């Protein structure tokens, strides 16, 4: 289908964008790479009066400061895929990025766009939650930082408020001995996940994030010293109280089964080094 009519505004500076968003409120949507937003417009799931294209604002790039890697909001998936810093210091991102759609989409889609939309089956929300990255947000009132654990609120709902722009994400670099696992099941390579898991073992803790199975990415923490059978049993019981929802292809019951399978695989991969 074709997108409904809208007007287009391309600010040259962040302040200009923020003033525009402040003035137009919900009538304006931020356009970054457009790889999700333009699809939803074509499907007429959304009909804003204005698109505010932030690609002219310098929010793109990957920088290292001490033990932090900061990735600007309009950095593309392809930028991340090709970044030596990411491969060396943020291995979970490097594991996840090949699963994000296809080359033709990775070349334009952005990290910030993915997090602002917060599709429950998308890879980046799960990854930032597994690493509890810091999400940087700007508005006319100033800047604030929200940790990923406090950022995701529900189906396509985040802590991002009207008039705000997500400007970047700060990740703590992985430490020696950290282990990472990323796996997703989808009907075709690059499609949204039917079920997926991002996991990181750091220090004494393992953080598992399930995605594609609920209304938002679901975090589950475990003690790395726990024996694997106990860890699994505890997870199975926790899974029963998680809100798992089915989609067109998999019922909630099937998704629970996939989640258990992914958890087992993650444990085995991470368990090899735990033991």
């Amino acid at each position, binding site marked *: 289908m074709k997108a409904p009519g809208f*007007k287009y*505004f391309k600010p040259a500076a962040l302040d200009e964008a923020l003033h525009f968003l402040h003035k137009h409120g919900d009538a304006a949507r931020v356009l970054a790479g457009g790889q999700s937003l333009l699809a939803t417009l074509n499907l007429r799931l959304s009909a804003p009066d204005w698109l505010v294209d932030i690609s002219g604002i310098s929010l793109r790039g990957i920088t290292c400061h001490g033990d932090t890697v900061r990735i600007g909001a309009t950095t593309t998936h392809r930028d991340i895929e090709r970044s030596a810093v990411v491969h060396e210091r943020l291995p979970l991102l490097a594991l996840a990025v090949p699963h994000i759609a*296809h080359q*033709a989409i990775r070349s334009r889609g952005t990290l910030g766009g993915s997090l602002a939309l917060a599709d429950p089956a998308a890879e980046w929300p799960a990854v930032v939650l597994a690493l509890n990255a810091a999400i940087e947000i700007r508005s006319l009132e100033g800047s604030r930082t929200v940790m990923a654990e406090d950022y995701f609120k529900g189906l396509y709902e985040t802590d991002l408020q009207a008039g705000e722009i997500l400007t970047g994400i700060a990740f703590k670099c992985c430490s020696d001995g950290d282990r990472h696992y990323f796996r997703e099941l989808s009907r075709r390579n*690059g499609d949204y996940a039917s079920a997926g898991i991002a996991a990181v073992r750091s220090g004494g803790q393992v953080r598992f994030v399930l995605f594609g199975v609920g209304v938002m990415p679901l975090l589950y923490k475990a003690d790395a010293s726990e024996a694997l059978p106990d860890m699994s049993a505890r997870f199975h019981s926790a899974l029963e109280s998680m809100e798992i929802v089915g989609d067109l292809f998999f019922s909630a019951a099937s998704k629970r089964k996939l989640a258990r399978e992914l958890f087992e695989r993650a444990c085995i991969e991470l368990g090899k080094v735990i033991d």
Partner: protein
Amino acid sequence: MNSDDESTVAVTFRLNGVDGTHRVQPRTHLVDFLRDSQGLVGTRAGCEHGVCGACTVRIDGAIARGCLVLPAQLEGADVWTIEGLDGTGELKELQEAFHQCNAVQCGFCTSGMLVTASQLVVESSGDTPPDRAQIREYMSGNLCRCTGYQSIIDAVKLALRAKGNTSHD
């Protein structure tokens, strides 16, 4: 490049090597602009939400979905369609290989397949040539509704070999 009224924006970019300023409605996506305003109908409008890859074009040296890009976003960009790439001769080995391998059935997906494959040829000219699995992965964003995938992978592999950059598995 901002909307000066409700209907159109003016945007300047290079299309198949030719610079031009175009007046477009913001809502028009690139594939419709190419087909309806420029007569470049080699780029196909398939699913129109980024799934099928029939509208694949090259923008600033990387492939992109024509249905998920607005011409309004393209100020200063360098855009190549199947027609432009054909004109440069860049697709010669791929076209011959598609012909030789019978990698065309109805033909609807073919131009998108060729543009995607041309990018793989560009990106794999280094030391690590793609094997068959990597070719499959790279091409997985393009759907062939006739399901002629095996011969398409065969053709891409043959073309890469003709260019001298594939592993011999």
